[in-house]
Structure formats: structure tokens, C-alpha cells
């Protein structure tokens, strides 16, 4: 068999159904074989970065379906592979398993600066869990099978396989054999399957039982382990309030009585004040990112910390723990639940305190939502998102880009469906939403998918409208256009005396762009039009786009200023000193 055939065979053996990518000279043999065999759907992105985010969409969204898949993207050598880099780095930061297969110049000319040559392995190595360059045809299958193993074992992450073109064309020897079922990787470091000791669990339970002011911080690890139900059981059984990191959202219905919503830089007042005043932080599948902790020296100074985390290198990295449990969040919670000592406590004072926190700015925010327009008379994003949340019952899937609108969706969308929230967190990659939504829709075809972007991020991967058109991908695109890079503008308003350097943007006629791609388009400038526009978008079969003219003066609050501690949280500009 030829190398290219083995690539397709391996992907088929691993159950791959979707491959996203862009062809080019050095990957042609693989594409040719793909066309001959047609064993999976190939979706051509319009830029390789789009393909990487589509692959992320598949891995993330299929996790909770009956058919979990690993997203695969493909690109040619040189510029093709380099264009994947941002999407792959993003997957690394957010622990998303994806596989990237890149063509490389023929092995004989590697390191000669050949046409479209770049050092893919060298570039990808610090961004991925592992990189491969098979230099013989008989290494292809084992590389790809090991790549899938490495990508998914423990904490997920991206893996790149860079295959020189001559190896894609090389024929296997007559005695070549590879058994995909019997294959086992010899990377012993990657066989890791942590099982916490009973004594550790007992210590954690004892801390929980003693705590008067506990707080669970639910991270991405709960989503990755599909452990929302277990989290719910734990929170309810031991009566523990839950705050969510950005990627922890949608683990539980966000209006669950024990839920305090998102924590961190743009978290809710109640979750941040609870974190500040807690006597016990129970961190489940999260890594104490600076957007969650604020200034580390001031973080949870009065609290004991239980840290459940699958990646041992995250334990004690940013925050010193009292009890650390190196395990996947789902397994660890099950063990906590099985411990007969775990008790429920009323903690009435603590819950009353939390209610006081909750009420602090609730009226002010509700007033803004009801008014619907900002200082410049244009729409407020929080009003649109609140209406979307109401219209969908919080049951639809939401994919958000990066910036103000992302934080507003995280705050005001009433997530009900497990694993229904996708965005770029760690890397904060503008432009992620449109392509990620394409991947999400492929594996969750029966659910409605809203892709929400600002005018900045939307234009970073606007070319993927072509992919959406070609494959008639049924996603509802909401464009929050305020003519600015809103989040940076917000920092400029608050910390740079209102000098708007590099944030105002002259935008094209988005209606004409939508029309050029054959995508139905609505433009909304009035509060009274929002509901009808959302309803029309929801009912339409196929892709559709709604542009909202948003108020540039909207500020996402609360906000913990970068470098500040949670105690420095700005809850209201009216109260700002």
C-alpha cells in the first residue's frame, strides 16, 4: 500500500467522519486518495486556521454525543501548515484534542529551504502534545494511531503529523503488517491513568464537611469528562455553591439554585465575592488561570484549597493546595460521592451572604437590560443576549468569538444543555467562532447553533462564509457591530483616559457581504425589532445572519482589572471612586 492510502486507512480505523482542510502541493497524494476512497466527509475551509477551529468544534461538541469524534484538519506544507498554527495553539491552551496532518516537502530536500518548506515540527512542538514526522512509509500508521492516543489520553491537546510527500507516495514492503486494534504506544509517560488514593479522598471530604463557606469552581475538566451530572450530585448532596470558569459553563443549568454563574475577571458579583470570602475552594478540572484568580498573592487567602486536576503539572503551579487529587474530574467526584462520611450542611449564613452579594447590582443590570440602549442610543449587547436566552430557553448551542460579546454571552445566556457553549478561552483567539460553529453543527445536526461575533472577530475569519455557503451549514450568525474592538476600547475607557488607539474600525456593508454568499440577512437597530429578528433567524432553515447595531459605550461589568485582586472588582461605574 501507498503511504497516502495508509493515512486514509488510519483515519478510517479511528472512526473519523469529518476532515477539514485545504490542499496544496505537498499534501496532494493524501487528498487524491481521499477522493478515491470517499470514506469520510471532506470540508474545505477557506483558510487553514478555519480548518483547525472546525476540527476543534467537532472534538468539543461531539464529546457528549453517542459518537464522540476527534476533529481532524489537513494542510499542505509551508504556508498551509503555518496557517494552522493559531488554531492548533488555541486547541493546546484549551485542552482540546485535535489531529493535524500536514504535507511536507520530500524528505530528500528537507532543510534545503525548498519551495513551501517550513520547519513544521519545530514550530508545532511547543504548542502541541506531540509531533510526528514519519520518514518511512511503515511509520505512518503507528504515528497516526499513537497521535490519536496522545491527543486524547489525560488532558486533551493537539497532535501534528507532518508527512513528507515522497513518504506519502512510498509503497510498503510485502511483509508490512500493522494491527490497529492490537497497537499499543510505547510512550509510557502517556499511559497515565490517575487513581486517587482513598486517604486523599477522605481528607478532601473532611475539609468539605468542616467548611462553613465552601465554593466549587467548576472548570473545563467537568465538560471534558462529561461529568455535569456528577457535579450536580455532589453540589446537591453536600450543599455546595458552584461558580464556573469560562469553559466550565454549561456543565450545570446556570439557573440551578446552587449556581453562582461565571467567576473571574468578568464573573458575577456573587461568585467573585463568594470566592473572596470562602473558607474552602473546591477546584474541579480547572487550572487557576489568571482570568479566574486575579492577583495570585490575594487569591482566596482565607480559604483551604482542594484541587482536582487531571494534569499533575497544574497542581500547585499557580495556587498552593491543601488537598490535591490528580484525577479526571468525573472519577474524582464519584469517589467523593461514594465516601460515606460526606455530609450535607445547611450553611444558612453563607447562602444568605451569597444572596446579599447577588442583589448588589442586580437592579442596575436589569434596568440596563430593560432600557436596551446605551449612552449613544444604540443597542446593548446584554439586552440582545438576554432576549436570545429567553427566546431559546437557553437550550440552544452558543459559539462565541472573543471580546465583550463573549463575556456578555457567558454572563447573560441561561445555559441549560450540557456542553452547549464553545469559545476560545486560554488563547482568546478572535475569529474562532464562525469556523468553530461549522464543526459544532456537523456533529450536533439536530440542535440549533448560534455563532456570535463582534465586528472585529467576525472579519478575522469572514472567509468561512464561503464554507458555510458551500455546505449549507445551518448556523445562525449574530454579528454585534459597534464599530470598535470593544473589549480593548473598554480598557481604553477605564485605564487609558479614553484614548481609542487602534480600536475604531470602518466596516463594510455586511448585508451586501451576506448577500454575496447567498445568506439571508437582517439588520437590527431598534430594541423593538430584536425579538422578531431572532425568531425569524431561529425558524429559517439554513444559514442566516443578523447584524445588530450596538452601542460602543457599553462596558462589561463587573470587572476585575488585570493585575488586580478580586477585591479590586469594579461592580458599577456609578460607584467607581
Amino acid at each position: 500500500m501507498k503511504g497516502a492510502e495508509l493515512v486514509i486507512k488510519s483515519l478510517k480505523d479511528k472512526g473519523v467522519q469529518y476532515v477539514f482542510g485545504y490542499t496544496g502541493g505537498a499534501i496532494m497524494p493524501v487528498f487524491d486518495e481521499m477522493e478515491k476512497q470517499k470514506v469520510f466527509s471532506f470540508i474545505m475551509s477557506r483558510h487553514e486556521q478555519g480548518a483547525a477551529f472546525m476540527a476543534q468544534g467537532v472534538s468539543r461538541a461531539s464529546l457528549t454525543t453517542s459518537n464522540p469524534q476527534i476533529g481532524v484538519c489537513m494542510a499542505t506544507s509551508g504556508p498551509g501548515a503555518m496557517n494552522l498554527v493559531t488554531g492548533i495553539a488555541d486547541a493546546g491552551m484549551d485542552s482540546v484534542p485535535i489531529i493535524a496532518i500536514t504535507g511536507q516537502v520530500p524528505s530528500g530536500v528537507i532543510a534545503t529551504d525548498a519551495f513551501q518548506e517550513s520547519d513544521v515540527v519545530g514550530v508545532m512542538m511547543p504548542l502541541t502534545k506531540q509531533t510526528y514526522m514519519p520518514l518511512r512509509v511503515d511509520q505512518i500508521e503507528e504515528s497516526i494511531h499513537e497521535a490519536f492516543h496522545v491527543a486524547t489520553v489525560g488532558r486533551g491537546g493537539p497532535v501534528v503529523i507532518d508527512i513528507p510527500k515522497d513518504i506519502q507516495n512510498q509503497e510498503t514492503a510485502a511483509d508490512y503488517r500493522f494491527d490497529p486494534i492490537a497497537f499499543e504506544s510505547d510512550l509510557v509517560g502517556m499511559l497515565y491513568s490517575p487513581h486517587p488514593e482513598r486517604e486523599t479522598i477522605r481528607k478532601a471530604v473532611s475539609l468539605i464537611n468542616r467548611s462553613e463557606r465552601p465554593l466549587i469552581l467548576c472548570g473545563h475538566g467537568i465538560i471534558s469528562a462529561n461529568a455535569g451530572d456528577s457535579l450536580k450530585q455532589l453540589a446537591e448532596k453536600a450543599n455546595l455553591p458552584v461558580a464556573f470558569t469560562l469553559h466550565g459553563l454549561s456543565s450545570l443549568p446556570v439557573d440551578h439554585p446552587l449556581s453562582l454563574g461565571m467567576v473571574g475577571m468578568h464573573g458575577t458579583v456573587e461568585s467573585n465575592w463568594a470566592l473572596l470570602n470562602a473558607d474552602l475552594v473546591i477546584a474541579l478540572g480547572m487550572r487557576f488561570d489568571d482570568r479566574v484568580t486575579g492577583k495570585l498573592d490575594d487569591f482566596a487567602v482565607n480559604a483551604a484549597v482542594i484541587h482536582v486536576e487531571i494534569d499533575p503539572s497544574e497542581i500547585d503551579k499557580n495556587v498552593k493546595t491543601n488537598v490535591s487529587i490528580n484525577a479526571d474530574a468525573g472519577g474524582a467526584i464519584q469517589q467523593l460521592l461514594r465516601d460515606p462520611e460526606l455530609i450535607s450542611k445547611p450553611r444558612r449564613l453563607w447562602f444568605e451572604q451569597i444572596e446579599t452579594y447577588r442583589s448588589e447590582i442586580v437592579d442596575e443590570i436589569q434596568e440596563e437590560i430593560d432600557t436596551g440602549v446605551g449612552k449613544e442610543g444604540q443597542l446593548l449587547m446584554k439586552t440582545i443576549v438576554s432576549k436570545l436566552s429567553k427566546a431559546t430557553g437557553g437550550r440552544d448551542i452558543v459559539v462565541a468569538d472573543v471580546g465583550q460579546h463573549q463575556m456578555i454571552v457567558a454572563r447573560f445566556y441561561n445555559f441549560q444543555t450540557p456542553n452547549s457553549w464553545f469559545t476560545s478561552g486560554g488563547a482568546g483567539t478572535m475569529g474562532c467562532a464562525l469556523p468553530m460553529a461549522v464543526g459544532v453543527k456537523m456533529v450536533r445536526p439536530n440542535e440549533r447553533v448560534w455563532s456570535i461575533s463582534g465586528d472585529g472577530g467576525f472579519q478575522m475569519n469572514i472567509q468561512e462564509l464561503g464554507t458555510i455557503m458551500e455546505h449549507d451549514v445551518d448556523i445562525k450568525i449574530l454579528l454585534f457591530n459597534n464599530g470598535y474592538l470593544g473589549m480593548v476600547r473598554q480598557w481604553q475607557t477605564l485605564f487609558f483616559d479614553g484614548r481609542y488607539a487602534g480600536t475604531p474600525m470602518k466596516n463594510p456593508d455586511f448585508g451586501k457581504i451576506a448577500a454575496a454568499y447567498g445568506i439571508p440577512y437582517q439588520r437590527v437597530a431598534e430594541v423593538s425589532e430584536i425579538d422578531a429578528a431572532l425568531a425569524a433567524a431561529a425558524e429559517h432553515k439554513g444559514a442566516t445572519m443578523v447584524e445588530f447595531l450596538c452601542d460602543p459605550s457599553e462596558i462589561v461589568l463587573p470587572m476585575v482589572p488585570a493585575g488586580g485582586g478580586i477585591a479590586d472588582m469594579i461592580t458599577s461605574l456609578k460607584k467607581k471612586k
Partner: protein
Amino acid sequence: MTSTHPMKRRAILIFVLNRPGVLNKISMLIRRKMYNVETVTACRTHRPGISRMTLTLYEDSDDKMIQVIKQIEKIAEVLSAKELDVDNSFWREVAVIKLEASDSLMERLGSKYNFEILDRQENEVFIIQMAGTYGLIDEFMQQLGEGKIIETARSGFTAMEK
């Protein structure tokens, strides 16, 4: 390489699968995480396909050392990584030194230090090889005096636990 650094010198012993790019990954990690690394040595072991690396660095904080080891363990090809107990391990290096010295000085040094003369040139120029602890090599070089040394090549540490 004299030990004038204010922080504690510590060593990590790493066993790795001998696959392409492992050394690159370790050195990238050092750069990325800004570890204060002094020496890295790598060699094959008697077990096929497995190499050992000894890494020495300056670090006072035990927490930071644990982090370094965890980050190293995260590399797919790493089989094990552990800090060597200074009091319970041998750290050795080899120095090849080109020096200028009179026969009488060489004789005097030879009675005190164990080295091998690899080459003797005219004008009292010698190339010698000596192996031992870093302290011993440092001391030898001090005895010799700066003016006498033409060139030095030190291997960096390799180490083994008792």
C-alpha cells in the same frame, strides 16, 4: 563554572525514550519556563532505546523544583524524572584543559591531582584530561592560575545515585 551563584545548585536525572526531538523539547522547556539551567548532558544507557540526561540548575525553591520535574514528566518521551539527593549521589564531570606550565609545576600538580597528559607540545604547552567533582576541577584550575590556562572544555555534569 565556579560556584559563585547565589542559589542552590541542584540536579535532575531524566530517563527518556531515544526518539528524535527529545533534547529539543527539554531545551525548549528550559527557555519557555525560564529555568536557570547550568548544564545539560545526555547519553545512551545500556538499555537499547533509552537515554539518560542530567540537568543541573540553580534553584532555591522546592516548589519550583517540583514544577520543573512535573513539566519534564509531561513530555511524552520522558520515562522518569527525579531530583538527585546531593548527599546521596555522585556528580562528576570531565575537563580537558590546554595549559602552559613548566615541567616542575606539572610535577607538583601531578602529585596532588590525578590527571592524564594527552599532549605535550613545545613551549611548555600541555593538554590534560581530568575527571572528578566540580570542586576538584575548580580547585585545580585555581591552583594553576588564570594566566596559565589557554583553553578549557568541561563536559557538564553527569550523576548517579548511590
